[in-house]
């Protein structure tokens, strides 16, 4: 296991749950944090905490510098052309809201095309936009194996103004061919939900040729409360701001205000400075390992898990690890996913159960809920073996 040595950086992996060492298989919900990230946050609060942008005392200058360096780090990480194309928000959900709301005049009554595998956060903002604008919402389906129906997309993309789609499904695990989609729909604004992809594989916005990308720090070793909206500069300039207040304005009188330059137009109020600092530390850490290595590791674990689990449970989504991100959702006939998760928890194994904020997807495949194990760079094959053993126990306990 090539990445085993990094486990020691994650303090939480040493704790015990019900007397057993924690086996954390819920990184798709939120990842754990290496000590480098925790220490960066502590260092910020202990040594240079100050409000940013306006302040010219040394602490303020230092905090401003750190915050803007975080922006540059993110920009380089996704290969944005300019740091100003990176807007700090709370999470993927807010990023997609800022995008949908900001595009409302540009989209007008044009068609918005989504897929049927979207997370609620990439569905409900567009439902709202469609309602406000009286625009059409359309959906591309997925086949029995969980692959996006590309032929259907080709049809439906023709007159779409926006295509908003996830790069990796948080239930099916499917990795969608974003570059191909962007080529097919070169006239549409391509919005990508990167919540499950950016943490797990190299993502290059210029190479993919997309317009908007959303992702969360907390799913990629970073702190809670910070995420990113990336958008092309020309688009950001045209988009309406979402939150109004200090920092996002240039001039204000009692009855009027003019918006500030990018990226500040979209960042009102005191931002999550410590979050940006921690996020930078997380990206530095990921880059030290290398995103290709992380992707390879995820794939190895997923491949191993697919083989081991397929005899025991009903796996949802593609059969091949190379088409999946590092997560596996499954069901076990009669046994409710909550009960699976609860039994596993007795063995110290943390997995998720429910609809994973993808209710329409679950309805579509005819289930209420599923169990999901998800992996990251700190997981090992031994942990998969423990998962399998514990699932066998589930089977025994719930035998009718």
């Amino acid at each position: 296991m090539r990445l085993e040595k990094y486990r020691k950086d994650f303090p939480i992996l040493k704790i015990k749950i019900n007397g057993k060492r924690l086996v954390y298989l819920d990184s798709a919900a939120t990842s754990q944090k290496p000590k480098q990230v925790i220490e960066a946050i502590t260092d910020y609060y202990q040594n240079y905490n100050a409000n940013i942008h306006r302040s010219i005392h040394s602490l303020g200058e230092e905090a401003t510098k750190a915050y803007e360096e975080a922006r540059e780090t993110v920009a380089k990480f996704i290969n944005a052309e300019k740091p100003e194309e990176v807007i700090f928000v709370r999470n993927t959900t807010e990023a997609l809201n800022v995008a949908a709301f900001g595009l409302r005049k540009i989209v007008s009554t044009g068609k918005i095309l989504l897929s049927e595998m979207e997370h609620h956060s990439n569905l409900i903002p567009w439902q709202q936009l469609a309602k406000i604008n009286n625009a059409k919402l359309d959906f591309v389906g997925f086949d029995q194996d969980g692959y996006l129906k590309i032929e259907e997309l080709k049809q439906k993309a023709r007159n779409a103004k926006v295509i908003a789609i996830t790069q990796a499904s948080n239930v099916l695990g499917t990795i969608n061919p974003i570059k191909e989609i962007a080529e097919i729909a070169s006239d549409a604004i391509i919005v990508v939900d990167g919540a499950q992809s950016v943490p797990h594989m190299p993502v290059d916005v210029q190479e993919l040729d997309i317009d908007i990308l959303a992702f969360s720090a907390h799913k990629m070793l970073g702190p809670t409360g910070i995420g990113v909206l990336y958008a092309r500069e020309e688009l950001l300039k045209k988009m309406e701001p979402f939150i109004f207040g200090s920092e996002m304005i240039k001039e204000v009188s009692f009855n009027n205000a003019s918006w500030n330059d990018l990226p500040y137009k979209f960042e009102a109020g005191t931002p999550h400075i410590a979050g940006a600092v921690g996020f930078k530390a997380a990206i530095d850490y990921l880059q030290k390992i290398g995103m290709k290595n992380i992707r390879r590791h995820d794939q190895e674990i997923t491949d191993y898990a697919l083989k081991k689990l397929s005899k025991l449970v009903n796996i949802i989504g593609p059969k091949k690890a190379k088409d999946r991100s590092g997560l596996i959702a499954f069901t076990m006939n009669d046994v409710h996913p909550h009960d699976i998760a609860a039994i596993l928890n007795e063995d110290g194994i943390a997995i998720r159960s429910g609809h994973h904020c993808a209710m329409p997807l679950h309805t579509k495949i005819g289930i209420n809920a599923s169990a999901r194990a998800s992996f990251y760079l700190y997981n090992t094959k031994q942990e998969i073996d423990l998962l399998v053993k514990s699932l066998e126990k589930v089977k025994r306990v719930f035998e009718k």
Partner: protein
Amino acid sequence: MKEIYSEIILDHWKNPRNKGRIENADIVIEDSNPLCGDKITFYLDFEKETIRDVKFEGSGCAISQAAASMLSEIVKGKNIYDIVKLEKDEIEKMLHVSLGPNRIKCALLPLKALKLGIYSYIGKKYKT
């Protein structure tokens, strides 16, 4: 640690008591926990201020379904004003487990549905 799935819970899950419907029940009430997909429908017959008969249908996790089954046994013949006083503590005692803030919602769903049913019965009574 005590295991969460005691014999009793598993027994009620495998052999639910009072499962089914009452035709022409005084009150039929459905509630669900959309976060996890658990669903419960109670069929209730009343005799003045007591529950004369109760049956339920539902789908969901073992905790929610066992809780419904156990609760149906307990409340049959009981005074409705005593039932609406039941709280989280009594349910945890009934199930012999203590549950976290998320999982407890499964355990409390049947009680919530039952109380809703009783309130609509009371509401109906006072209307006529």
